[in-house]
């Protein structure tokens, strides 16, 4: 059954987010011959060609001063209109700050079922079957939307994107912005300089636990992360002890991450923490205690003092990556 797919394309720090390309690729597999449309909200058409090269058949742009920054009221109206225009029966968003905030309201407005945080999508006998982690990765579930519109958010960095093909062509259309009564007023946005790489979509995560001993103890971890282009996370013990913000916490009551490489420094490996990171492709553990449970889930372990080992690792990676 051919489907009309709509993908919300997101721009962050002046570039399209890779998860938007991953959504387009997932959309192509679900469309079964139907069109895949990408919508850019609050952005001009300068990104449209890149979306087409990555597999979109059509790009809708919706611009307006009130859409430049994300607000639920402004963007929900815009996404809703784009879905009507594209006659979408399948709507995909990244499981990002914006996607998580917008998709449930969009689904409710359409009386639609939604699958959150999908890590895999397959079409089986005409049905779209999503796989998603539950209990923060202690288990997984497959889930389908039984009837009506399909809405889903796709976890960044889990599904493949299509290679850019600049020979592809597609239509770009500008739509008028819907009138919106924005109830939310943005007073201020405080950007965290230190947390430059978003944890949930980072390819590499360097995390610290109780073993970092203080807020300053995170310094060598940040230095390693900088060389690797990695995000910096933490265990609940480190956050509870006040060594870092809760925003950095990885675990069942924090963020769930699935990077290619997870480097756990001074983290014992409580079940709460393992839930949030055990789906990482490769896990490295650095801990003084050879009995720490983290070593049981690690691919590579170093029994040693993180304050000695981590700076040496930073040096080695610097030499390797130049």
């Amino acid at each position, binding site marked *: 059954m051919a489907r009309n797919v709509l993908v919300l394309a997101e721009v962050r720090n002046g570039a399209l987010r890779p998860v938007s390309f991953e959504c387009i690729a997932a959309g192509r597999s679900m469309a079964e011959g139907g069109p895949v449309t990408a919508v850019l909200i609050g952005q001009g058409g300068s990104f449209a060609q890149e979306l087409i090269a990555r597999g979109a058949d059509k790009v809708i742009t919706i611009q307006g001063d009130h859409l430049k920054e994300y607000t639920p009221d402004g963007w929900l109206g815009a996404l809703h209109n784009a879905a009507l225009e594209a006659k979408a029966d399948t709507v995909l968003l990244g499981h990002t700050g914006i996607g*998580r*905030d917008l*998709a*449930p*309201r969009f*689904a*409710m*407005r359409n*009386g*639609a*079922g*939604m699958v*959150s*945080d999908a890590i895999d999508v397959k079409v089986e006998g005409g049905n779209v*079957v999503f796989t998603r982690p*539950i*209990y923060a990765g202690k288990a*997984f*579930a*497959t*889930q*389908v*939307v*039984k*009837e009506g519109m399909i809405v889903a958010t796709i976890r960044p960095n889990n599904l493949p994107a299509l290679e850019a093909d600049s020979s592809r062509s597609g239509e770009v259309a500008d739509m008028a912005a819907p009138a919106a009564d924005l*109830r*939310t007023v943005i007073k201020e*946005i*405080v*950007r*965290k300089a230190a947390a430059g790489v*978003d944890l*949930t979509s980072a390819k*590499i995560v360097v995390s610290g636990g109780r073993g970092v001993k203080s807020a300053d103890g995170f310094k060598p971890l940040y230095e390693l992360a900088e060389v690797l282009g990695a995000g910096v996370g933490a265990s609940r013990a480190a*956050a509870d002890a006040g060594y870092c913000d*809760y*925003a950095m916490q990885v675990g*069942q*009551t924090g963020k769930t991450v699935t990077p*290619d*490489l997870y480097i756990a420094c001074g983290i014992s490996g409580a*079940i*709460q923490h393992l839930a949030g990171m*055990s789906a990482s*492709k*490769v896990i490295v553990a650095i801990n003084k205690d050879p009995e720490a449970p983290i*070593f*049981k*889930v*690690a*691919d*590579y372990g*170093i*029994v040693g003092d993180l304050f000695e*080992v981590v700076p040496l*690792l930073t*040096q*080695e990676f610097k030499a*390797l*990556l130049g």
Partner: protein
Amino acid sequence: MEILVLLKQTFDTEAKVTVKDGRILDDDVTLVINPYDEYAVEEALKVREAQGGTVTVVSVGGDRVEEALRRALAMGADEAVLVEAQPGADEFVVANLLAAWAKGKAFDLVLAGNVSVDTGAGQTALRFAEAMNLPHVAAALRLEVAGGKATVHRDAEGDTEVLEVPLPALVTAQQGLNEPRYPSVPGIMKAKRKTIARVGAGELGVDVSARTEVTSVFQAEQNRLNKIIKGEPAEQAKELVRLLRGEAKVV
């Protein structure tokens, strides 16, 4: 200030998750208030303590959910309501039931958890806001309520956004918003004497056909290499980098 808290009962986060015959076993598991919802209850109590009013907690589910509601009462909530639902209710159905129950009642502020630690879907509270036509702010790290407005600091992928919304509004709690209190002994005694109101899903007259279905539940095998790298720290670092590049191919 009339405050409503949407509450879900979940597994204790330290509980072991066991899958048998395609479902999660919950018979011997300690169930608790979803930790994020507990922040919502605490915040509701703080707002009430500062401004007066009542705190009502509402949940959807079966008999066991009464324990969680009773705990919220013991923390200090004034009233508790259980909307009875059949197993298999998805986020669409739960939000529809909550909204049908809440319609016509005048709440100034609705609080809920940002996400539940079991399904992790993060849909129900925002769906409820949409069904009730309320503005929302998700993942609050700080909340101030004054002059018919809520000022909220929210976590947006590591950045902090400061937003202002007119009341009534829905705000979801992120970890770090507060430190939930433990119920006091008098609080527990008082909660025991309270009645938890029950509402049958049928009485609410809304669409309760689930839009989604979980078709299987499984656990992934953890096949890890468990290689311990020996030697002096400098050798260990060199060897680890070599393995990550040559063997694991992740850098």
